[in-house]
């Protein structure tokens, strides 16, 4: 059994825009969500810029009950619930108010780690011999699956409710997990997405690895430079993206708006062998992932007319471009348009895949390829492989029919998903 799967709803909580409308406008204009954080400066971080969604208190009251807001100290949970509830509503679906679970509706919502600030509070209390003062909220805000558990309860879903985790691949992986479950007939609707937390305890480890840019603390919007010769490393970010995936039958029966079709994709790992390691990708695996994603989707490589890369703004960007080029057998002016949103929103880590898939899909409806920022000086190694015209420096009118999106993560894991504009 293999059924067509479509995207019928989206929500986003991104550093440069909360909500689909603001996010779309931000991507259009190349608006940066990267800001200087005085707390990172106080803590002697090398990189003191970061990309964090701006969520106002009055917005929180729209998404959480007063009880849920009590002792709430998990930023990823906040972003995930906002994006998830928005996507559900955007799909024209309502929270379940009956006594019966929605058996055909599930949640696959990933994260890297949840409730780090809450966990920090708990550590202090436990060490102070005040374990009884933790209350009931510590576990549910710090378990990784807290995000799928919250969303599952808020929406009343009765199908699979789980949290996946595969570093920076998480969001894209979740979409493919949801696609497979719906395609095989095990569910009709799955809310999928991912969230990533904010703050020094999340970002500190990356700062210590010296893979974040240090020369832009007084010029935050220039700090994240995917595909640029002057790229220094990725800017850490946070947020959440969410998509409602649905069987085509179910979407048609409901008369739902269809954003795009998920044609297929591929997940794999480089096994941390050869040039692959815990932190470096194995090119053979990346190329294989892209090739199999294209094949599984029943298309040919030249049909892909836009790519949203992983492209984090490290020295590996040129290698990624080469891998796309080799995998697709396309180079120079034949290569599709390619963009990375990370110039604006930094690298949102576990949230990156879902936020960027939302942005990629928005291009179908808007009839554009969103522009890249901070890569006026395209890296010379990239220009040896593809023509500079393939890297739009600002948003261009162009109606893509098929978009490929890939995400790669620590642990040498890869995900590539193929979306198409919906046609019946």
């Amino acid at each position: 059994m293999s059924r067509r799967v479509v995207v019928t709803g989206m929500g986003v909580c991104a550093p440069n825009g909360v909500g689909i409308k603001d996010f779309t406008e931000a991507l259009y204009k190349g608006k940066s969500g990267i800001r200087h954080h005085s707390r990172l400066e106080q803590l002697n971080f090398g990189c003191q810029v970061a990309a964090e969604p701006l969520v106002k208190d009055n917005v929180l009251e729209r998404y959480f009950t007063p009880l849920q807001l009590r002792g709430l100290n998990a930023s990823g949970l906040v972003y995930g619930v906002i994006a998830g509830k928005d996507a559900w509503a955007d799909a024209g679906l309502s929270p379940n108010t009956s006594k019966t679970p929605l058996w055909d509706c599930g949640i696959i919502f990933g994260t890297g780690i949840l409730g780090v600030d809450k966990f920090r509070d708990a550590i202090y209390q436990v060490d102070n011999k005040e374990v009884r003062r933790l209350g009931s909220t510590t576990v549910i805000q710090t378990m990784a699956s807290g995000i799928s558990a919250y969303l599952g309860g808020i929406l009343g879903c009765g199908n699979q409710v789980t949290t996946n985790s595969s570093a920076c691949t998480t969001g894209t992986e979740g979409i493919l997990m949801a696609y497979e479950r719906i395609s095989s007939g095990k569910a009709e609707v799955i809310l999928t997405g991912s969230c990533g937390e904010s703050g020094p305890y999340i970002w500190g480890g990356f700062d210590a690895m010296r893979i974040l840019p240090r020369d832009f603390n007084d010029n935050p919007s220039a700090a994240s430079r995917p595909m640029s010769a002057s790229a220094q490393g990725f800017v850490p970010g946070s947020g959440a993206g969410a998509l409602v995936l649905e069987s085509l039958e179910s979407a048609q029966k409901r008369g739902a708006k269809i954003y795009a079709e998920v044609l297929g994709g591929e997940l794999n790992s480089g096994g941390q062998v050869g040039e692959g390691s815990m932190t470096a990708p194995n090119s053979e695996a990346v190329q294989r992932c892209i090739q199999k994603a294209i094949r599984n989707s029943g298309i040919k490589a030249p049909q892909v007319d836009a790519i949203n890369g992983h492209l984090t703004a490290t020295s590996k960007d040129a290698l990624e471009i080469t891998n796309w080029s080799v995998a697709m057998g396309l180079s120079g002016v034949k290569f599709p348009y390619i963009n990375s949103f990370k110039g604006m929103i930094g690298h949102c880590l576990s949230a990156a895949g879902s936020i960027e898939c939302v942005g990629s899909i928005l291009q179908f409806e808007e009839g554009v390829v969103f522009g890249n920022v901070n890569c006026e000086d395209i890296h010379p190694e990239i220009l040896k492989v593809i023509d500079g015209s393939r890297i739009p420096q600002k948003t261009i009118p162009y109606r893509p029919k098929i978009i490929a999106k890939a995400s790669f993560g620590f642990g040498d894991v890869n995900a590539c998903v193929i979306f198409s504009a919906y046609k019946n």
Partner: protein
Amino acid sequence: MQEEEKYQKLKDIVKVYLPEDVSVSEIQPTSNFITELNINSANLVDIILDVEDAFDIHLENDDMNQMQTVQDAIDIIDSKLAV
């Protein structure tokens, strides 16, 4: 502290934990937190912490086990304040 004031203070704590389909007016002295007010049993520990903070008292495990109804809570608070 007046009885009425104490009761009101407790009611203010409890009402936050009521599920959506239970109204504040249903809180009575005889109400059982879990079986009548439908409060999630996990939230009972939060009510206890809130009571400790609001009345500046410390409850023992035994006190917590005995706290089934709103009146039980009042009695325990009274006994602690009397010390």
